[in-house]
């Protein structure tokens, strides 16, 4: 909190030139609209899909589990791309995007594991097993939780950016391993739910939900980038004001 000194003018004569605060973006509105679109496509898919012959209505978890996992992979792909760009060009906006995507991707990976566990209990009879798909996904979560911890505990922003970019690039290597784990190793997890492997009656519902969930994820990343930029601007203006008041 700023200390108010009644002996000084409200506006310091040495204050930096006033710059208008950035206008509020529409991303907040878009984020709620994207969430509403996810709700709509989930409702349509749930209402229209019949119970699966083997799994019954637990099959409906697919409409949220598969899009969540897909978006987590995509988010880590974005981390990889922006981490490479940051190390190459050293531009702050690339680091902002990588951090935002890492945060969203980590939340989605944790959610994927929770959904899978809830689906696994009635289907496999267990909440968790050290299966290749589950284990590689848990490792992915730990890598990117480490990424976020590194950001939180490294004070120098440039070091934090560079070190976490390296973690982001190497962490992404695990994504194709997680994706292919159901084909490379003996596992109780079914093969990836894609247009080729899903019964035609479930295909449209899955596709709709993958699209709306992807839009939601991209809007969330954009909103998180916006938060990072605004917070940096706040810090810069606060620092400039304190310096000007101290002269």
């Amino acid at each position, binding site marked *: 909190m700023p200390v108010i000194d009644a002996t000084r003018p409200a506006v310091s004569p040495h204050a930096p030139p006033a710059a208008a*605060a950035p206008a509020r973006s529409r991303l907040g509105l878009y984020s709620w609209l994207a969430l509403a679109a996810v709700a709509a496509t989930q409702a349509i898919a749930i209402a229209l899909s019949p119970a699966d012959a083997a799994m019954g209505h*637990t099959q409906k978890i697919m409409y949220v589990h598969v899009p969540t996992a897909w978006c987590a992979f995509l988010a880590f792909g974005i981390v990889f791309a922006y981490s490479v760009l940051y190390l190459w060009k050293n531009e702050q906006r690339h680091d902002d995007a990588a951090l935002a995507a890492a945060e969203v991707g980590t939340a989605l990976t944790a959610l994927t594991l929770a959904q899978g566990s*809830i*689906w696994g209990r009635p289907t496999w009879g267990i909440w968790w097993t050290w299966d290749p798909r589950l284990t590689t996904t848990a490792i992915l979560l730990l890598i990117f939780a480490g990424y976020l911890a590194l950001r939180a505990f490294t004070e120098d922003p440039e070091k934090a950016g560079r070190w976490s970019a390296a973690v982001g690039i190497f962490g992404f290597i695990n994504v194709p391993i997680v994706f292919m784990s159901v084909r490379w190793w003996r596992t109780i997890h079914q093969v990836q739910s894609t247009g080729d492997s899903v019964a035609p009656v479930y295909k449209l519902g899955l596709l709709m939900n993958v699209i709306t969930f992807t839009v939601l994820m991209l809007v969330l990343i954009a909103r998180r980038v916006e*938060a990072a930029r605004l917070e940096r*601007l*706040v810090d810069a203006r606060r620092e400039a*004001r304190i310096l000007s008041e101290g002269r």
Partner: protein
Amino acid sequence: MPHGSDWGMGWALLAYGVSWAVMIGYLRYVNSRVGRAHEALAREEDF
């Protein structure tokens, strides 16, 4: 353990409930960070 359609919708609702809690929670967290930053910028302008 009931399998398939008996309790299937209950398990599905649990999965959707957890998912919506995370989605709404994260969305509100990010939006609140943006909101707080705008408020802080407005305060800085007042100085």
